C-alpha cells in the first residue's frame, strides 16, 4: 500500500527541510526523504557548518598566536585535533537533532532512504541502512507535488580521482584528525581557499593551484588580490593560471606535477584536496521516469517559481545549478513550498548575498563596479578601508575595505563588496538596503553605533556621495 502525501520533498538539506517545514505550516501533508540518516544535508553535515566550526577554531588559534603585539604572551599553545573533531561532531549533532525536532513539531514526516521516480507522481524510497539500527523498509510514495532538493556532490578530476585517503574532497578534509604536513589544494575557489586557510592556520604547508588567472574566480580582482596577499602571509603558495597534470606515489606521500606560468613544478603533499566544483545529485533519482529535464551538466532547470518542466515537480538549491549557496536553497525551498500550497510566491529577490570565510572574510551583494558599469549604470564608488575605523584597529583587524557601488543618477545602492573582519555578518545590512531600494543617503543618514564595524558601511555610503568624514573624499 503506497503512502499518499500532498507533498514529497526529496533531500533534507537546507533547501529541502526548510521547504518541508513551510509546506507543513501551510497545511500540506508533507513527507521528507533523505538518503542519509542525518538531516541537514551537505551544508550541515559536510559543508558550511563543520567548516565554520573548524575555521573559527583556527581563527582563534591564529589570533592568539598573533596577539603578542597586544601583550598576550603564553607558551605551549596546542590544538588537540581529536577533541576538535569531537567538538565538530557535537555541533553537527545538536543541529541534526534541532532540525528533526522542528520537522516533527511542524508535522513533517521523515523517511530515510534513497528516492527514485517510478512515474511523475510515484517515488520509490529504498530504505537506507541506519548506522545504529535496522534498515527501514522500502516504500512507495504517491505525491501530489514533489520537490527535488537532492543537492550536489564535490567533483573530482579524471587524473585525480577521489580515493578518500590521500586524494580527498572537502568532506574528508573536514574529518581529518591529523593536520597534514603538506596539503595541495586543487581549485582556488571558495571551498579550496576556506579549507586551505584553515589548514595553513593549523600548521600545514598549503599550496593552492588554480586554473584561472585569479583565485575566487568571479570575485572582483581587487578582492582576490587582497585575499591572495593574505594567503601568502599565512605561508600559502598560490599558483594561478596553473594546472595539475598527474601524481605519483612517493612512500606515503604524493608527488604532483603542476604546470605553472613559471614552468613545470613537482609538489610533494600528504593530502590532495580536490575542490574544482560540484555536480548535481541526480544519479539514481530516475528523473527521466518523471519526465523532468536537466541541462547538459545534469542540473535541473526551473522557472521563477522553482517549477521544473513538469508542473507539479519543483527543484531547489544546488541541484538546479550555480551558485551553490545554502541560503539560496532555503529561500527557494520556501518559494517552492508556498507555490505548492497555492500561494503566488516567486524567486524575485534583487540581491543574493555571498559570504566567503577566508582570512579576511569576503562578502558581497548586488553588483560590483565593473558589472554595474556593464549594466549601463553611471557609477560612483565609495570605498573605506577598515584601517580608518577605530573598532577595526582596536581589534587588530585592519585588513580590507568596504566598497559601496552607487548609481549616480538615482543614488541607489547597486552593490557592496566587503573584505575584512566579520564581512559575512556585515553584508546583510546591505542586502536589506538593496531589497528596499535604499539610496546611499538612506544608509549615510542612518545612525550606526560607535565603535563598530558597520560604521565602515555608513562611511562608504557617505564616501560614494562625496562627503565622508573619516577618509579624504575623492574628487
Amino acid at each position, binding site marked *: 500500500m503506497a503512502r499518499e502525501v*500532498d507533498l514529497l520533498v526529496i533531500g533534507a538539506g537546507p533547501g529541502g527541510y526548510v521547504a518541508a517545514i513551510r509546506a507543513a505550516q*501551510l*497545511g*500540506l501533508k508533507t513527507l521528507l526523504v533523505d538518503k542519509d540518516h542525518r538531516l541537514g544535508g551537505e551544508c550541515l553535515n559536510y559543508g558550511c557548518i563543520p567548516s565554520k566550526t573548524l575555521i573559527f577554531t583556527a581563527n582563534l588559534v591564529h589570533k592568539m598566536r598573533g596577539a603578542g603585539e597586544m601583550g598576550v604572551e603564553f607558551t605551549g599553545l596546542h590544538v588537540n585535533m581529536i577533541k576538535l573533531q569531537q567538538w565538530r561532531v557535537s555541533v553537527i549533532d545538536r543541529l541534526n537533532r534541532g532540525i528533526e525536532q522542528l520537522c516533527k513539531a511542524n508535522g513533517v514526516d521523515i523517511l530515510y532512504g534513497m528516492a527514485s521516480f517510478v512515474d511523475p507522481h510515484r517515488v520509490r524510497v529504498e530504505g537506507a541502512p541506519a548506522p545504529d539500527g535496522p534498515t527501514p523498509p522500502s516504500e512507495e510514495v504517491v505525491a*501530489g*507535488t514533489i520537490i527535488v532538493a537532492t543537492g550536489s556532490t564535490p567533483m573530482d578530476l579524471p587524473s585525480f580521482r577521489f580515493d578518500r585517503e590521500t586524494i580527498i574532497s572537502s568532506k574528508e578534509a573536514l574529518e581529518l584528525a591529523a593536520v597534514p604536513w603538506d596539503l595541495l589544494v586543487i581549485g582556488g575557489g571558495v571551498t579550496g581557499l576556506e579549507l586551505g586557510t584553515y589548514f595553513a592556520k593549523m600548521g600545514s604547508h598549503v599550496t593552492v593551484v588554480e586554473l584561472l588567472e585569479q583565485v575566487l574566480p568571479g570575485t572582483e580582482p581587487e578582492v582576490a588580490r587582497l585575499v591572495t596577499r593574505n594567503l601568502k602571509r599565512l605561508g600559502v603558495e598560490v599558483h594561478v593560471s596553473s594546472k595539475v597534470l598527474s601524481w605519483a606515489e612517493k612512500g606515503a606521500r604524493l608527488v604532483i606535477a603542476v604546470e605553472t606560468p613559471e614552468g613545470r613544478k613537482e609538489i610533494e603533499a600528504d593530502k590532495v584536496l580536490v575542490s574544482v566544483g560540484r555536480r548535481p545529485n541526480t544519479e539514481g533519482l530516475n528523473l527521466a521516469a518523471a519526465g523532468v529535464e536537466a541541462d547538459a551538466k545534469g542540473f535541473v532547470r526551473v522557472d521563477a517559481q522553482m517549477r521544473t518542466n513538469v*508542473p*507539479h515537480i519543483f527543484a531547489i538549491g544546488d541541484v538546479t545549478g550555480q551558485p551553490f549557496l545554502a541560503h539560496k536553497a532555503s529561500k527557494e525551498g520556501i518559494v517552492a513550498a508556498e507555490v*505548492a*500550497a*497555492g*500561494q*503566488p*510566491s*516567486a524567486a*524575485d*529577490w534583487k540581491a543574493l548575498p555571498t559570504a566567503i570565510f577566508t582570512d579576511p572574510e569576503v562578502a558581497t551583494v548586488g553588483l560590483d563596479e565593473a558589472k554595474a558599469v556593464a549594466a549601463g549604470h553611471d557609477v560612483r564608488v565609495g570605498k573605506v578601508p577598515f584601517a580608518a575605523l577605530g573598532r577595526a584597529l582596536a581589534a587588530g583587524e585592519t585588513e580590507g575595505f568596504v566598497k559601496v557601488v552607487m548609481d*549616480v*543618477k*538615482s*543614488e*541607489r545602492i547597486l552593490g557592496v563588496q566587503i573584505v575584512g573582519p566579520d564581512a559575512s555578518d556585515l553584508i546583510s545590512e546591505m542586502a536589506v538596503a538593496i*531589497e*528596499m*531600494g535604499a*539610496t546611499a*543617503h538612506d544608509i549615510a*543618514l542612518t545612525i550606526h553605533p560607535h565603535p563598530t564595524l558597520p560604521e565602515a558601511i555608513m562611511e562608504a555610503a557617505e564616501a560614494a*556621495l562625496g562627503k565622508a568624514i573619516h577618509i579624504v573624499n575623492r574628487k
Partner: protein
Amino acid sequence: MTKEFKLPDIGEGVHEGEITKWLVKEGDPIKEEQLFVEVMTDKVTVQLPSPFTGTVLKLLAKEGEVVRVGNAIIVVAEEGEAAQPAPAPSIEPPVIAKEPASVAPAAPPAPPGEILATPGVRKLAREVKVDLATVRGTGPRGRITDEDVLAAVGGAKPVSGVTPPAGPAAEPAVPAAKLAVEPISEPAAKPATEPIAEPAAKRAVPPGLEERIAVHGIRRRIAEKMQKSKNTAAHFTYVEEVDMTNLVHLREKLKVKAEKKGTKLTYLPFIIRAVVAALKDHPTLNASLDDEKGEVVVKRYYNIGIATATDAGLIVPVVHDADKTDLYGLAREIERLAEASRTNKLTPRDVQGGTFSITSLGALGGILATPIINWPEVAILGVHRIEKRPVVRNDQVVVHEMMYLTCSFDHRVIDGHIGAAFVESVKEYLEHPALLFVEA
C-alpha cells in the same frame, strides 16, 4: 512633445476600466480620432479615440489590467517630434529635499524596466496579481508602496492569508474628487466588496482542484451593485398572472409585418409599451431615491433598462425615450442594443440614464424569480415564460397563453397597494393590447 492619454471618465459611476484590447502597439503611428484601445468598464465596453497624432511610445497598461479613471494608459510622441525613449511622467512623485541645492537635482523615478519596490510590496503584488511594471510608484523616488499596489487593484483586499498592511487604509491613487463622477455612487473600496473575498483557506488545496478568478470589471460591478441594492432598498416582490392570449395573436400578425420591415418582433416591445403606459398611470414607479438628500426623484422621461446576459456578465442597456417610439422603433432599438451588447459596441449612453428596468428570462423561464432592483431605481419587472395553461373562463376550463409577472419594489418609496396597482395596470395593457395603441 510626448503626451499621455489618461483613462477618461467614460460613464457615470465608472471608476476604472479594464484594458481588454490594445488596437495599437508601441512604435505604431497613431492618428487623431483613431480608435486605439478597447476598455471594458463595469457598464460597457468602448473603443476610445486618440486625441493626438504621432507615434505610440509606450503602452502603460497590459491587456487585462484594470486602470483607474485618471491614470495614464498610453504615451504618444506628437507628430513632428522624434520618439523619445522614456516617457516624461506627468505626475511627479513627491520629492523630499534631503540636501541643500548643492547636490544633484532630485533623483528621477526609477528608469523604465527597473522596479523599485520592497520585498514585501513585491509579495503583495503577486498576491493581488498586479504587475509592478505597470504601477506608478508614489513613494520616495518613485518607490512603489503597498498603497500603490492596492490602488492598482482598485482597493480590493488581498486574497488568501495576506495580512493587509498596517497603517492608513488603502486609498485610491487618484484624488477622490476625480473619481466621484456620480455623487451617489460610492468609491470601489467600500466594504461592499468584502463579503465576496473568500476567507483564507486553512488547508491548502492541491493545485488544480480550485480555480481563482479575479473579480473585476463587469463581474465586480455586478457584485457591488447587487449588494448595494439588497443592502439599501427594502425589497418586496409582487406576483401576477397575465393572460397573454390576445397579445400572442396580435404578435403573430404583426410579426409578419415587422419581418417585411426587416425587424424581428419579440414580446419585449409590447411589454415595454405596457410598462411605459403603466408608469404614466403610476408616476412614482418611474423614479429613484436620492438617499443623501432623502428625496424621491420622479422622472418624466421613460428610459427602460433591459437586463441582458453577456459572456462577461449581466449588463443593462437602456432604451431611451421609450414613450416616443413606435412598436417597430422599439423592436429595432432592442435589436441594436442586443447586437451591441454581444459585440462590445455599446456606447456609454447606451447603458446610462435608466429609469425603470425589465428583466426577462425569456424561454428559459422557470416559474418565478424575485428580481433585484437596479438601484437607485425603485422597481423592476420580471417577465417569465409564456405557456399554455388550463384556466377557467365562464366556468369552463380552457387553454390560454399564460405568463407570470414578478415585480420587485423598494418599499421605502412604493407601498404595496401602489406596486399592486402598477402591476395590475401592466396586466391590463398586456391582456388588452389594443389599449396600448389607443393610449399612444
